């Protein structure tokens, strides 16, 4: 456990130090790269609550990632044109957008979870995929906000007291949100809710036999998980200043799962480790060949066959439960 804590601290320090150094050396590209890591890590950390701690393999989290992205895009567009949305004035401040993304994702995740959680195993994977595909095609065929072409964000949404156009400021916003959520996850993991959720993953029959309904626990985890991935989606749209249906594609859902597995399923910093490795590979190998995901495939194969605990498991050994 102590080794895992040290590794986690090192990852957190690394992810902060690299963009600070890059900023000092006037290399904004690397700041943007680190921002991408932080946002993908947050999205995957959201998924990790459902997938890692709850054992719920959602193959539809890109839907929430995309919904968050569209909330950011739609708010930015309305705010830029000073058009009200549903009769209300629109803010271009990130905290408001995150709140809106959270509410919309929760409202969408609630019925999806309530239906999907009636199934398990492969059926759960397929039904979450089916819901995500429905939302994906809805986004494609909705012309008001760009349809298939997507929606550009002319001016990155703001944050009170910060100039988010500055790459480092925006990175710090993303990093702060990631850090806050990881602290929250650390508390939740060892709480009553976390105990029930992890126990339900290990043995749902046992959880029911002591009088706790696994369904409710899992539904809550699924909704929280969707909300966090949605907020990450809003950040992702702001990073690229662009949102399109591809954020909701099943490939994106797969990428999020890959991040979690690479880093270490059900490990607090697994998504961070996974996102760092993923973005590094994408950057290093992507410069050599367009087919860089072939190498990602080999690495994933290696992790699944030889290092089930992912990167964190490789460094810190098997997870211990207090």
């Amino acid at each position, binding site marked *: 456990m102590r080794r895992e804590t040290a590794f986690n601290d090192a990852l957190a320090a690394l992810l902060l130090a690299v963009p600070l150094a890059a900023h000092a050396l006037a290399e904004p590209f690397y700041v943007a790269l680190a921002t991408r890591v932080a946002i993908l890590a947050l999205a995957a950390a959201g998924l990790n609550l459902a997938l890692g701690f709850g054992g719920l393999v959602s193959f539809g989290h890109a839907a929430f990632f995309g919904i968050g992205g569209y909330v950011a895009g739609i708010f930015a567009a309305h705010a830029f044109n000073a058009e009200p949305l549903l009769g209300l004035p629109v803010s271009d401040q990130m905290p408001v957008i995150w709140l809106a993304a959270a509410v919309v994702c929760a409202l969408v995740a609630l019925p999806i979870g309530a239906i999907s959680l009636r199934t398990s195993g492969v059926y759960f994977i397929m039904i979450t995929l089916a819901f995500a595909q429905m939302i994906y095609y809805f986004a494609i065929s909705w012309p008001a906000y760009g349809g298939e072409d997507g929606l550009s964000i002319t001016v990155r949404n703001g944050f009170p007291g910060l100039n988010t156009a500055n790459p480092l400021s925006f990175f710090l916003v993303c990093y702060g949100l990631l850090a806050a959520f990881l602290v929250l996850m650390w508390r939740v993991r060892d709480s009553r809710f976390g105990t*029930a959720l992890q126990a339900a993953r290990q043995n749902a029959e*046992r959880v029911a*036999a002591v009088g706790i309904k696994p369904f409710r626990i899992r539904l809550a985890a699924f909704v929280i998980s969707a909300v966090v991935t949605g907020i990450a989606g809003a950040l992702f749209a702001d990073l690229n200043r662009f949102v399109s249906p591809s954020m909701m594609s099943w490939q994106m859902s797969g990428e999020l799962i890959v991040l979690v597995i690479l880093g270490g399923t059900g490990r607090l910093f697994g998504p961070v480790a996974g996102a760092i490795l993923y973005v590094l590979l994408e950057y290093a190998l992507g410069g050599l060949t367009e087919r860089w995901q072939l190498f990602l495939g080999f690495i994933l194969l290696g992790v699944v066959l030889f290092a089930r605990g992912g990167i964190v498991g490789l460094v810190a050994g098997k997870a211990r*439960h*207090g």
Partner: protein
Amino acid sequence: MAEAILDIRNLSKSFGGLKATDDVSLDLKKGEIHALIGPNGAGKTTLIHQISGTLRPSAGAIRFLGQDVTGLDVAARARLGLGRTFQISSLAMDFPALRNVMLAVQSRQGSSFRFFRNVGTDASLTEPAMAALSRVGLEGRAAVPASELSHGERRQLEIAIALALGSKALLLDEPMAGMGQEGSRSLTRLLDALRGEAPILLVEHDMDAVFALADRISVLVYGRVIATGTVGEIRNNADVRTAYLGARP
């Protein structure tokens, strides 16, 4: 006559053409151990599953503490105080023994929707859980993951969980199975002491334990109860001897 804590009336369960439970009526009274015996395939575990709520009966009713629970699910029955152990130990294998018991304590306290407080430092969870572990003699194994406990220790842990739940009746499905002689003896002593706290419906193949513990015995054959009575009555029942005891080598 003592009041019935658990009252099963005319319970039937069919799987296709097979009648796994055929018009079974039995009850569990305050302070008693009621053993359910019968040859393999008699439908004992199917009956336990219906009482605990895993399976829905095709017909009949189950009353627990005066309330009809036939329509309730497993979790709801457990919260009313119907504790059980499984024929094959069913635990959160990655969790240490203590945290397995703490799950039952937190359920008993009400809500699992508390997100921030660390359970490991919450004495309102750890102390009752540790007390339950001590009662089954597992206090020295509290920090060991369930996956590393021996078969017999897992059985004890399941009983500790049922105790921590504050069970008002216990359904024990072959708790002695696979236990060594010494393990069986100490478990027999434990169950003997428990009956005053919670009456026990005991499914068991270990006849020494059954004869030592049971206040009453019901014999189940092909889904039907062919006899119910005291140890002496069952030993001397001709039907039982042919159907079950006599068939034993």
